[in-house]
């Protein structure tokens, strides 16, 4: 009784072959964007690293190896303080956007009751991100100036008696503006990770006697950690590379490595620019690695 007369199964090899050709054509298609990324992302980054070891000439560089660019930068006090200021600004911006942005994400994901208003408010908070970065930086000028909105408001409220000078063209101004410009990169990932939390989990915690700060510390922060780390990495990387905000809001009073790079390029000192950029990348990557390790994001992925 071993002769079954069930219909023959479809011939497997044919299906397999079809799938293979399909995968092959996808792979061919995929080579286009990958080629694009190679030419316009990976090679340029490599070129920067390579050129940083080239000999500068008056109008560019010649292809002979030297460590002078790095030696010059690393032995110059101003570059060091610029680098330190860049890192400090990036760290402050990261911490401030986290402290300020977390509660926005919390409000959106956990307090706003229905989905329609949740998404609507999220989009409203997100919309400025799509507008020109440059214009948003410009928009800070009338806010921060000696006669700007902030000073006028503080004066008329009687909080200060004379306009504050540090509001524009200062490190303070740059950091406030950067926090505003980059905050959405912090809010969005935290919002998404908080949104995936099952409300029943919070209810269970409450059932077991957890107060809101217990829930925050024991449940929300650990579960939002991937989002927090991603947001922190975003904001840190963006503020490390910033130069437009520094130039526009900081005036001459603030510096950043990005701005130095731009200045080097203006004076056609490409190898120095490349060396500065390489140091910037190195420090940024170091910061990101530390952030990832601190967030130990790997253990959950």
């Amino acid at each position, binding site marked *: 009784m071993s002769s079954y007369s069930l219909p023959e199964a479809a011939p497997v090899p044919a299906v397999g072959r079809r799938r293979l050709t399909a995968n092959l054509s996808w792979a061919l298609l995929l080579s286009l964007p990958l080629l694009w990324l190679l030419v316009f992302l990976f090679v340029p980054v490599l070129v920067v690293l390579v050129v940083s070891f080239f000999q500068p000439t008056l109008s560019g560089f010649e292809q002979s190896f030297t460590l002078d660019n790095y030696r010059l930068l690393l032995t110059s006090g101003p570059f060091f303080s610029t680098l330190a200021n860049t890192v400090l600004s990036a760290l402050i911006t990261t911490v401030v956007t986290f402290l300020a942005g977390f509660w926005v994400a919390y409000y959106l994901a956990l307090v706003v009751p229905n989905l329609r208003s949740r998404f609507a408010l999220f989009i409203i908070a997100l919309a400025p991100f799509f507008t020109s970065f440059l214009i948003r930086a410009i928009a800070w000028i009338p806010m921060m100036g000696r006669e700007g909105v902030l000073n006028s408001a503080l004066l008329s409220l009687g909080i200060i008696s004379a306009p504050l000078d540090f509001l524009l063209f200062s490190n303070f101004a740059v950091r406030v503006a950067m926090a505003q410009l980059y905050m959405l990169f912090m809010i969005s990932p935290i919002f998404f990770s908080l949104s995936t939390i099952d409300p029943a*989990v919070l209810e269970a915690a409450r059932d*077991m006697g957890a107060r809101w700060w217990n829930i925050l510390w024991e449940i929300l922060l650990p*579960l939002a950690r991937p989002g927090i780390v991603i947001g922190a990495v975003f904001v840190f990387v963006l503020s490390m590379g910033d130069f437009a905000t520094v130039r526009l809001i900081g005036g001459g009073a603030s510096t950043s490595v990005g701005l130095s790079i731009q200045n080097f390029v203006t004076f056609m000192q490409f190898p120095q620019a490349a060396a500065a950029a390489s140091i910037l990348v190195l420090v940024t990557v170091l910061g990101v690695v530390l952030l990832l390790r601190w967030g130990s994001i790997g253990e959950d992925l």
Partner: protein
Amino acid sequence: MAVLAQNERPAEDGVASGGQRGTVVLRGVAKRFGTTTAVDHIDLTIPGGSYVVLLGPSGCGKTTLLRMIGGHEMADAGDILLDGVRLNDVPAAQRDISTVFQHYALFPHKTVAENVEFGLKMRGLPPAEREQRVSEALEFMDLANLRDRLPKQLSGGQQQRVALARALVTQPTVLLLDEPLGDLDRLLQLRMRVELRTLQRRLRISFIHVTHNQEEALAIADQIVVMEDGQIKQVGSPQEVYRRPTNLFTASFMGDNNILAGRVLSVNGDAVEVACDGLRLRANGVPHALTVDQPVHASIRAATVRVRPEATAATDLPPNCVAARATFIEYLGDIVKLHCQTASGLPLIAKLPESDTSWQHIREDETDLVLYWDDADVQLLTA
């Protein structure tokens, strides 16, 4: 062992549920969501140390009722009492009640031990005591070797045991279970319902369990509370609810009942005759007063319908007998279900044990049959 509940006593103690803690009383409890009434002024007493199942279709308000007892939903009206103390304004955390949530709601980033420890930590117990009680609870639920796993590394059954350990470690007097078996496959469901029942017997605290699964309710409950549209339709032991449904909803929801609409022909003491579409029924022991010509529904459990092959004129038959043919014979393993149609076109179902071989001689749409049942198996329903 002997650790999870302070009121666990040796089995030989054997006292009836009378003086036990964990008695929940609901008085006129109501809840509305917008314009829909989820729970409509419910009165119910759940004796301490009993296993009560709230049974009903989805949307009947059973989960809302459970959540109000647990303190996750505020009652709009009425009182909720636990051992005589009004709970309405007591926050969930301070009630002596724990919940096993639907889909368990385990903390995904905490290990099994950390999940179980959480409630003790929130109560501010010292670490040494927490550790001891967690270990005991894990031992009790047979989870000791899984203590450092994360929830996603556990099977459904293990997750459920963690949820139980987490809820029981704080020694509640009432345990609420919201569809606790819903996520498990059927074989595990069968095993876990025995385990739940055994656990409740051992702990001797009240379990209030919500489900939409009739069989689960029958298997597990001391008392079944049947709910529909925010109201309680019937409360009783599994046998009562299954054998003696008091209303149309319970009769149809419990399944396997033949329900026929008809009118009262005659009333003679507690023996009542009813006419349903050319078929005469006789019921005795009818609990409520009926009058002639009153419309009623009759419910006849499929398992009480018996079958004999016989060709007869329909008019010759006494009450509770009807001529029919099987339209479809459904073989279900331990039982065989005959889907029949009477001469007047009424569908009736008879369930026979598989070992009763008489069904083997019946041929679909061919063999003339007589279906018959006892007077006592006819339930007359006015509601």
